[in-house]
């Protein structure tokens, strides 16, 4: 094993930055694919390396405490590395199709890969920054980086979606900035040191001394601000447009990884608020936002016709489930939420990538027109079915486990009726997606549609995601378990 120590905190952002610059400079399709693949593989390997350090019990600090990695960081970096790799892998096959069709030229592809890595860079920065202001900047930067990817096809509808996305998320992030400043000012009043009052590690240590009133306000701002970007209801309105207009692998990255980065922004404030104002306030707030998101999304999932919009609303629903888990609180609730974060990343990435194949095959995303997927494209159809079953929490897939844990945590927290409501809402989602499978995957395809699946480049990443998703439902490997437990104690106590 190579010993890189805390230098890994420099390598992690440096690799995507270098890859992005290279990609922007290249004009050949073949070259840029090689560079891209090397880039995503290196980030994935570095993320595994970081996880290994953290599992050994190390917390890494670098650059005068500005960069930091603990259990929670490692979990997020793992998601960025692994899911980012798989989505990036899928992008290769996806873009080759566009190139072959002439929709995109080699320059466009280089542009795509460049921004892909810029987005990875900003996400990694958001994950490893210990300075709450830098974290805010990084999260804001993810909006800009991803905006280019969302509007990649330059359609009119895509432009509108990007506009909505940037506008709402930026307004939201302005709220988060207030929250950040409030936290800073209340910390500054305690330590009288501008540098220390910015560092998360310091904030957690002094959280008990912070002004509870100010911190309540700060948490509300943070929750609304970052909440807008993760898509909590009622700040979610940009999300369905953005997710459905973006190229499929980008939707997968947005829902699977970016959303989690922003969510971890909220999670960083959770232990501070917990200690400053007690658990009642943040938990109630999260529970309300959580159930509201699940509830509103459930009905929208039922009535949408565009399968990508359905999946987008499903992302809102799952953010709601994660928030419900956090709201239920306690070690079990936090564990449920964090495990759900992993499961949702894998499952939603699988689904969005699959939809990429489906939409190309049928030339539409309209659920009323797609029929008999299992007969037309068996592998894609099977993956779509498995992904949808997983997303509604059917065993043996991993979301079954984390949803069940959320339920148990809620009952443990004494929220009996809210949890019954939660279950009823989940049944609505279940019904919506089961009907979708019944209509689109099963049954008989249109006569004139040629049979045949997408190329292996567009299938292999799906297979890997499927195996991960199904595997975690049956068995959680010991290192991941340890990592999760570590992350839970970070969220609960900041250690």
């Amino acid at each position, binding site marked *: 094993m190579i010993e890189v120590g805390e230098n890994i905190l420099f390598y992690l952002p440096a690799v995507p930055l270098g890859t992005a610059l290279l990609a922007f400079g290249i004009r050949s399709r073949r070259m840029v694919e090689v560079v891209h693949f090397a880039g995503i593989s290196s980030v994935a390997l570095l993320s595994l390396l970081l996880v290994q350090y953290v599992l050994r019990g190390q917390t890494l600090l670098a650059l005068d405490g500005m960069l930091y990695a603990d259990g929670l960081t490692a979990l997020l970096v793992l998601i960025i590395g692994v899911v980012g790799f798989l989505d990036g892998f899928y992008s290769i096959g996806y873009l080759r199709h566009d190139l072959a069709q002439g929709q995109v030229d080699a320059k466009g592809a280089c542009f795509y890969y460049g921004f892909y890595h810029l987005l990875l860079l900003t996400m990694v920065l958001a994950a490893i920054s210990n300075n709450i202001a830098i974290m805010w900047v990084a999260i804001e930067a993810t909006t800009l980086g991803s905006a280019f990817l969302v509007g990649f096809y330059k359609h009119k509808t895509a432009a509108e979606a990007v506009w909505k996305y940037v506008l709402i998320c930026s307004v939201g992030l302005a709220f988060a900035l207030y929250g950040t400043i409030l936290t800073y000012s209340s910390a500054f009043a305690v330590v009288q040191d501008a540098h220390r009052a910015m560092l998360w590690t310091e904030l957690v240590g002094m959280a008990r001394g912070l002004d509870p009133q100010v911190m309540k306000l700060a948490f509300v701002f943070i929750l609304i601000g970052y909440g807008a970007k993760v898509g909590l209801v009622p700040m979610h309105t940009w999300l369905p447009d953005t997710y459905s207009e973006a190229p499929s692998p980008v939707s997968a990255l947005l829902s699977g990884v970016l959303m989690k980065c922003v969510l971890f922004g909220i999670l960083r404030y959770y232990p501070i608020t917990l200690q400053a104002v007690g658990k009642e306030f943040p938990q109630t707030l999260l529970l309300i936002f959580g159930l509201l998101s699940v509830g509103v999304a459930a009905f929208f999932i039922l009535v949408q016709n565009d399968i990508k919009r359905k999946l987008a609303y499903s992302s809102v629903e799952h953010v709601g489930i994660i928030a419900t888990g956090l709201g239920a609180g306690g070690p079990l609730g936090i564990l449920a939420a964090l495990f759900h974060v992993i499961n949702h990343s894998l499952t939603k990435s699988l689904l969005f990538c699959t939809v990429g194949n489906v939409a190309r095959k049928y030339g539409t995303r309209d659920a009323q027109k797609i029929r008999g997927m299992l007969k037309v494209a068996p592998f894609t159809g099977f993956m779509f079915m498995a992904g949808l079953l997983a997303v509604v929490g*059917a*065993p043996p897939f991993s979301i079954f486990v984390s949803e069940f844990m959320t339920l148990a945590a809620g009952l443990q927290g004494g929220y009996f009726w809210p949890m019954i409501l939660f*279950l*009823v809402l989940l*049944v609505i989602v279940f019904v919506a997606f089961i009907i979708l499978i019944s*209509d689109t995957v099963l*049954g008989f395809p249109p006569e004139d549609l040629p049979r045949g699946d997408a190329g292996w480049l567009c299938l292999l990443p799906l297979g890997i995601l499927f195996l991960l998703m199904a595997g975690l439902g049956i068995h959680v490997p010991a290192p991941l378990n340890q990592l999760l*437990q570590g992350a839970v104690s970070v969220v609960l106590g900041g250690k």
Partner: protein
Amino acid sequence: MIWYALGSILLPVLGSPLVLFLPERHVKKASQIFSFLAFTSGLLLLIAFAFNRASFTRELVTLNGINYYGVTIDTLSVLVNFMVVFLGWLICTYSAGYMSPDNKEHPIKEGVPRFYALMLLFIGSMAGVVFSSTLLGLLFFFEMTGLCSWGLIGFYGDQKSRNSALWAIILTHTAALGLYVATAYLYVNTGSFSVTALNKLTDAGKTIAFTGILIACWGKSAQLPFHPWLPRAMVAPTPVSAYLHAASMVKVGVYIFARTVLATGSVPQVIGQAGAIMAVVTMIYGFIMYFPQDDMKRLLAYSTITQLSYIFLAISISIYGSRMAFNGAVAHIFNHAFAKGLFFLVAGTLSYTTGTRLLSRLKGILNKIPVVGLGYIAAAMAIAGVPPFNGFFSKFMIIISGFEIGRHYPLILALIIVTVIESVGSFIWFLKWMGANVLGAPSEVVASAAEPPLAIKFVLAVLMIMTLISQYIVLFLLS
């Protein structure tokens, strides 16, 4: 012994993805081999258990000190598992004949690997339910069987089958919420998923947990108000109906109820009351619905609903302290599976050979296709509870124990009297159809019937024997 139990679960589960990737011509063979191996495991377990009678529980999946899944070997699980894998194998064998282009009602030309993959997964999941020592395991496999049944009921793929399949999965999943709540509630209050942990709950806690369990069981066993999925599910290929809607899927409900009641020393009587009342209400409803049915399979579906009510009633009575009622329930789970499985397969053979299963068009079956006629007689007599067929023994145990408990509880007495009346009524109704369909000169469709394949005849013969002897297996193990 633990390996025999795991064999029953894992062999079919492993076989399931395998048949999807095999060349189509090997699929039927392979699925028969896998289901036969599972059956062998079940049979060996039955024999081993009959000799040493050692009940035990082994924890298998444990994480962070919490047991998530374990295997319980006792009379209940050994018996029911034997039924599950035995019928599973018989149905796979029968399907080898039935799922063919020669089928008059539904010529099958494609989808055979999908059928067997789901069927094998179903057998494994059923065994998973049966052996589970934890509520979480029960819930997990409960949902797995639901998913498989969805694929199997909607097998033909037309709009009607797909809608019927939706009914099945949506209703049973909705009911399953009860089990979700019960499982989470148990875990939160006792820190364990083990079924035996139900004992540690307070009486109020037990009532909450058992209410949830009962709701889930009603859903899966097609009791009021969750029953509408079962008659609709009759669009499934008949081997599927024979397996899911006679032997396995609908038995998940009663099995979970039996397992949890058995594991809990004292269940609040209010659960017994609710269970018994709903059982008899369902029984009356199912009985009334016999009369308008002309489709043989739909008649059988309603008959299944009422027979499951008998089992619910018996388990509910056992909550009042009757060991015999519980044994009667176990015996009825076992006996009914063979009798109703046979009945469905008779219906299937009739549609295979004649192309119809409308009761009014079938006459003189015995004359034209004797093996089917004899099967019809055996199945009808067993379901109606006529000695020496197996249904008589279990129904007798249930009714006798009902009268015994009824001496102290007027409610139970009233319910058991209704049950006796229903029993007589359904006897008359089945006798009527048996006379009309089996005896006499063949009607036009029956006269033109083709000869059923050997696989089908073999399975019918085995099941006929089982309707005569299955009760002795139960009685021997329960003794």
